[in-house]
């Protein structure tokens, strides 16, 4: 199979983010997208713990414990940044002011349901953080994930078996094998990185549209 590497997938996602967009990049792999946003595209990063205009991770002397991102990693501030409190920050998300939010996922359904906060394991200690807010927190919510688990099961599914984070909230799924559009109309392949439609249908077990 032709698989895009994580950095290449991050690059692919970055290319789809519109000029001038306000963007929230979820914890984990989505953070990589930041490395591929050219400066001249004027993309502003939001971190839900209260900042617009977030810069790259802080290094050495730049590390300031009062300036962290949602993953609690020290970051930097770009010119034109602004700080606000948690209710204002999540109001900004909930109010649909962010253009794009990129999230990781355990599963996404063809209708755009998202499961990314809890594996449903009976002994798991639940922790949701901002996941459910991010799921409904942008004009476009995109998922970045491998299409298949290590066991070869599709993470794009007819119906999520894991506990949901949000209902019908995801519009696009970027995976290592292909890019999908999901929603009320079901799943459509927007771009394959090598696999045929039939092969993608076989791997996912879903009647994908082309």
């Amino acid at each position: 199979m032709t698989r895009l590497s994580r950095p290449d997938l991050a690059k692919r996602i970055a290319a789809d983010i519109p000029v001038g967009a306000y963007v929230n990049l979820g914890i984990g792999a989505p953070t990589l997208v930041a490395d591929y946003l050219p400066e001249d595209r004027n993309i502003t990063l939001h971190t839900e713990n209260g900042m617009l205009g977030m810069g790259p991770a802080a290094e050495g002397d730049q590390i300031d414990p009062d300036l962290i991102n949602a993953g609690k990693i020290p970051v930097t501030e770009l010119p034109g940044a602004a700080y606000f409190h948690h209710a204002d920050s999540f109001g900004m998300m909930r109010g649909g002011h962010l253009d794009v939010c990129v999230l990781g996922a355990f599963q996404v359904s063809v209708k755009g349901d998202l499961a990314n906060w809890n594996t449903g394991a009976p002994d798991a200690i639940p922790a949701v953080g901002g996941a459910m807010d991010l799921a409904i927190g942008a004009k476009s919510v995109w998922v970045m994930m491998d299409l298949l688990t290590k066991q070869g099961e599709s993470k794009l599914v007819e119906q999520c078996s894991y506990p949901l984070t949000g209902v019908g909230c995801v519009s696009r799924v970027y995976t290592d094998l292909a890019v999908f559009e999901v929603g009320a109309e079901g799943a459509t392949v927007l771009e394959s990185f090598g696999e045929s439609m039939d092969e993608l249908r076989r791997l996912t077990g879903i009647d994908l549209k082309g």
Partner: protein
Amino acid sequence: MLSKISPSVSDALAGIADGATIMIGGFGLAGQPVELIDALLEQGATDLTVVSNNAGNGDHGLAALLAAGRVRKVICSFPRQSDSHVFDGLYRAGKIELELVPQGNLAERIRAAGAGIGGFFTPTGFGTTLAEGKETRTIDGRDYVLEHPIHADYALISAYRADQLGNLTYRKTSRNFGPVMASAARVTVAQVDRIVPVGSLDPESIITPGIFVTHVVETGDRPWIASGQFETEAEEAEA
């Protein structure tokens, strides 16, 4: 002039009773009222409900309060962290109650308490297990869950500067839950790096007006500030 300055963290927390609901500010280390949490541990009140984004890290601070068996219930968004072993153990042993709230709903419920809102419809959490048993409603084609305010007896927060009227400013992302928690508690205690004279905080830039603050305690510049590494422009101008 009346002053809200408290001589010590222990004076500021003297009134906390057993069974109280305590909000604790901070997101990770940023904005965490370290000295106030330590003072709460010393203060002795038990059977507490703690409202905070996290449920303690490592063995100090909030984790130590939990370990001492002083907390009956935690209302938070993200209890599980790499080093939340104290909470994890208590939770698995059934010794602590957890109300898990999506982070934005947590912030909005706290804000609602401060703003006198009796309840609000939020889209966050709709259709998930965290909305089970809650009233839902479709408004203009979108699905919402009804959430209610979270009030507290005390809010313990950390800010950057205060004056003796209790006006507060914050520093960068340490602002986080401070302003909404200050508005939602019967008594708000703010620890600040420095207390400055009344009139020296810009009225346009005060984030928490003194009306929301009961006690202020000066705890001194934190190490990364004391080092001079991050002196702000305003203070350079002042110096």
